[in-house]
């Protein structure tokens, strides 16, 4: 039993103007994080990786499934219990520049933790505590205390936020894209700081879209696509011996310093770019498809899953998944009418609500199989 255990966590969002359709953002994701373990959660935008972080942080409820921390179910926690939970689980987010209130000094974030959790602590003891955590995140107290956010660099701000989390007796840190806004020269410092925290026993969920960062820091890797796990396992195994086509295509897209992008045959990837554009494909043969594919998230119209409404749904929401998805979903032939003839009179077709359970069942992810010890791969659809 790991420290944090995710068991078939699913999340379905309502979308459409009046919440008319349901969209699965996470599909039965299960994995665990141990003490002193860094798990990187990798996926493209829209893959549901941030949603998962928010569910663990109890910022948004899961639609189904269980999140347990040290054996206790987290999803039902509230009030005092939740307050205690945040003592052990904290998050740091992507944009340090918008995490601070520009009107207040940056170290106000520390003061807020003190009021909330350490009301009884003496000033001296508190100040000593602050200094220790600042040291842990390799910041010089004189550089950062009593300063406004704009006087600090992005890297300093981000480390200050990690320090804030460390003031508590934190056991699990959710780091959501904390590196991506930083400059190349300060990125590594923040990464190395995470490594040293991990060595002290902190569990870290490192959410990123950057494969090289994930590879550098993590012990385990989980690759997410359309809200479902496609491949997971020990990092050297997943990166050294990728099994799923999607993982392979992601790896070929990573820009490297000493190797040019290898040609990759996107066309065999199931959903290719719009057919109309086949003749005009760039000579290199590699353009956009994976990206399009990532966005081809399935939508389920609340008014039944029949082809009739599916076609209508696709027509009215052209934004979903570029041409490819629309073309796939749209039924051929003329658009069917919403009315039907019955007993010599026209009636509006009956609409049926799709229930959450149906969407969850319909969007069940492909099963994972073990291809080598400690390395799971989804069966390719």
């Amino acid at each position, binding site marked *: 039993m790991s420290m944090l255990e995710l068991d078939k966590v699913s999340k379905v969002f309502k979308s459409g103007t009046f919440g008319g359709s349901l969209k699965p953002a996470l599909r039965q994701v299960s994995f665990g994080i141990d003490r002193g373990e860094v798990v990187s959660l990798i996926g*493209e*935008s*829209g893959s549901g990786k941030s949603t998962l972080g928010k569910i663990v942080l109890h910022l948004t409820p899961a639609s189904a499934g269980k999140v347990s921390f040290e054996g206790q179910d987290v999803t039902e926690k509230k009030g005092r219990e939740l307050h205690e939970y945040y003592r052990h689980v904290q998050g740091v987010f992507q944009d340090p520049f918008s995490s601070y209130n520009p009107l207040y000094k940056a170290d106000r974030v520390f003061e807020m933790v003190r009021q909330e959790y350490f009301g009884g602590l003496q000033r001296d003891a508190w100040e000593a505590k602050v200094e220790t955590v600042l040291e842990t995140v390799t910041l010089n107290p004189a550089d950062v205390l009593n300063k406004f956010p704009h006087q600090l*660099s*992005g890297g300093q701000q981000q480390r200050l936020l990690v320090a804030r989390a460390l003031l508590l007796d934190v056991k699990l840190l959710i780091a959501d894209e904390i590196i991506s806004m930083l*400059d*190349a*020269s*300060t*990125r*590594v*410092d923040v*990464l*190395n700081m995470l*490594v040293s925290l991990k060595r002290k026993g902190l569990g870290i969920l490192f959410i990123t*879209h*950057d*494969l*090289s*960062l994930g*590879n*550098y*820091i993590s012990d385990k890797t989980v690759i997410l696509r359309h809200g479902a796990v496609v491949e997971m396992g020990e*990092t*050297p195994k997943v*990166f050294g011996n990728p099994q799923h086509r999607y993982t392979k*295509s*992601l*790896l*070929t*897209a*990573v*820009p*490297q*310093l*000493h190797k*040019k*992008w290898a040609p990759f045959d996107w066309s065999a990837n199931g959903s290719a*770019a*719009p057919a*109309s*554009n086949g003749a*005009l494909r*760039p*000579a*290199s043969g*590699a*353009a*956009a*498809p*994976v*990206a*399009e594919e*990532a*966005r081809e998230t399935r939508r389920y119209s609340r008014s039944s899953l029949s082809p009739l409404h599916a076609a209508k749904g696709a027509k009215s929401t*052209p*934004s979903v998944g*570029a*041409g490819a998805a*629309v073309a796939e979903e749209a039924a051929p032939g003329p658009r069917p009418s919403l009315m039907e003839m019955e007993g010599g009179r026209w009636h509006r077709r009956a609409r049926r609500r799709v229930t959450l359970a149906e969407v969850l069942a319909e969007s069940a992810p492909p099963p994972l199989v073990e291809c080598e010890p400690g390395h799971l791969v989804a069966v390719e659809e």
Partner: protein
Amino acid sequence: MSLSVRNLRIAYRTLRGDVQAVDDVTFSVADGEIMGLAGESGCGKSTLGNSLIYLEGRMRHLGGTVELDGKVLPISDDRAMNRHRMRDVSIIPQYAMSALNPTKKIGVLARDLLKSRGTKLAKVLPEFRRRVALVGLPDSVLEMYPFELSGGMRQRATMVISTLLNPSLLIADEVTSALDVSNQRAVGELLTEFRDRGYVKSMIVITHDLSILAQIADTIMVMYAGKLAEKADAGTIIDRPLHPYTQALLSSLPEVGVRYEEEELTGIPGRPPSLLDPPAGCRFRDRCPFAFDKCAEEPPFVELLPGHQVACWKAAQDVAGSAEREHEEAAR
């Protein structure tokens, strides 16, 4: 010679004085060349890019000339520049994803832009559609609002619109930064594709991501604190950088396959100096592990090896030293 910039100096006016964001910059970009411009945030790379097409109100042109295809670009004259914008020089702005007007359909936006350049959309429409298809967008995007497109699609739509009039120079400012890897690759490859097809003659690709430049750029220029640090062809910069700053920047990049257990990478300690009152001498001196007495003097940006310009006393010493050794060996 497509673009040639000489002694360009651009400053921002602030309450506390002028901030020298681009300080005495001289370089050129050849026809068909994709030049990468790299550096940390605040090093002046975006200011340099923007100054070639539009000087904001608080930006001031303090000196230097810009020549494009043999003609001087009147960069400090907003009106006179209008003639050149989009036709001769075009830009894919930073945050291109939010550069599109949310209340206008992509087609309407393009029509208005073209109208302001005195061209009718009808005239370029077939070519517009062809290019939209080339970048992998459905024909229907012309009828769509920006919010209906994903980030990657918006980025590509902006690319097509910016290059509709086949500009001689395209400035691509951080076009890949907000995208995920597969979109980064797609956009990167489209940039080279646009060059190969002659839609744009030459390009300046501004980014902080050296690994993207290693993929698409022909030459790379590195800036530090408003000054040029190093320029050479892409392979040379990546494999044999001479400036300590470039070296540090490269060694702080984690690559796929590098793990902390095997190789702990190091960042660059310290921060770039304030450009309000930049220190004398080499600006990287405080963070440089090789700094010595001579660095108190400002190093000139000179060609140390064929096609390889560097502004560093240490590099100059090293190159001279190795040349001497070779010379001695040859003499023996």
